[in-house]
């Protein structure tokens, strides 16, 4: 701020070199965040990645978007948007993870064709067997067989949901 002897707002022209330096710093920080990816910080990898992203965002906002020199009302509006976003995410997250009903029984693996058919049969109205990508080469004869297979996996889906419930009722028994 010591160099803010520039009184004019609209006609403030920054030196070409500054844009090059900031652009270079942003590219270096991108390389850094990719490099950091290969280092194991355990649960702190996401923290380091976000710190670098926030540093990059700050450079963009301060220099490219001129907030460092502009009227502080614009900075206030921008900071307000971040505060509102923070409140939005925090309150939603607290609420969501407080409701087990939302998360329980929705743990579906999709690692083979049977899983896929089962989830599609349950979730897609009027599902008529495997179609679309990944279903090529199944031929035309998947009438009765498919229905049987789908019912089978749907049963096992229901069973796995039931298993969750069972383990909870065991807890209740204690």
């Amino acid at each position, binding site marked *: 701020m010591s160099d803010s002897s520039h009184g004019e*707002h*609209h*006609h403030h*022209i*920054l030196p*070409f070199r500054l*844009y*090059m330096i900031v*652009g270079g710093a*942003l*590219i270096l920080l*991108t390389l850094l*965040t*990719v490099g950091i*990816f290969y280092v*194991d*910080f355990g649960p702190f990898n996401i923290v380091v*990645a*976000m710190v*670098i*992203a926030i540093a*990059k*965002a700050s450079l*963009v*906002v301060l220099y*490219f*978007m001129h907030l460092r020199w502009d*009227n502080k*009302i*614009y900075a206030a*509006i*921008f900071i307000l*948007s*971040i505060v*509102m*976003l923070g409140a*939005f*995410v925090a309150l*939603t*997250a607290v609420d*969501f*993870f407080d409701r087990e009903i939302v*998360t329980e029984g*929705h*743990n*579906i*693996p*999709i*690692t*083979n*064709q049977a899983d*896929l058919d089962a*989830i*599609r049969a349950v*979730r*897609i109205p009027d599902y008529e067997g495997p179609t*679309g*990508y*990944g*279903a090529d080469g199944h031929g035309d004869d998947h009438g009765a067989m498919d229905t049987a297979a789908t019912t089978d996996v749907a049963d096992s889906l229901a069973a796995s949901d039931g298993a969750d419930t069972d383990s909870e009722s065991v807890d209740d028994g204690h």
Partner: protein
Amino acid sequence: MADSASHSHSMSHVAHHFADSEQQAESSKMGMWIFLLTEVLFFGGLFCAYVIFRAWKPDMFYEAHKTLSMSMGATNTVVLIVSSVTMALAIRAMQLGDKIKTLAYLWSTMALAGVFLVIKYFEYAHKFHVGQLPGQFYTYTGVEGTNPHVFFSVYFAMTGLHGIHVIAGMIAIGWLIWRTQKNHFNANYYTPIEMTGLYWHLVDLIWIFLFPLFYLIH
């Protein structure tokens, strides 16, 4: 209107309800920042979804992110950063009244936005081909963990909305090129370039977060 326009040629861009060029530019900028606030919250809903789904299924997010190409994501990050530099330089060139350089920088920004979308197209095309698609369209079976289709729902929603913003930015930059060509701007009046610049930098800013959140899950 006719009165204010007749004051002097260089002030012809000032609408009658503003005291001077300075006040008009500051008002535009205030409006633009309020719009950017709504943009942050617009994307915020999806960032919120991301936070919740990743906190719920951290292992699946880790497994699913391996399907993304980190080199393509990193390349696109650099492409957008360079396009932000050229956009900022386009504003600077018009501040100096240099029409030719302004046009060159605007075209560069446009071209880099195009490169971004082409890379994104190749990423999307591959995902469509192997069925790594959102929700009920998910037909891929190679991701460990539960609910992998949710990862791709969030991925396509966020990168898709961002891609739409890139396209909107290209339209705005095209409009600026046309107006610059028509001599609508000069060293005293370049507000539309400056406002489009603010928008374009926000698009870059959002990608700066999308890149580590999707491509660099550890």
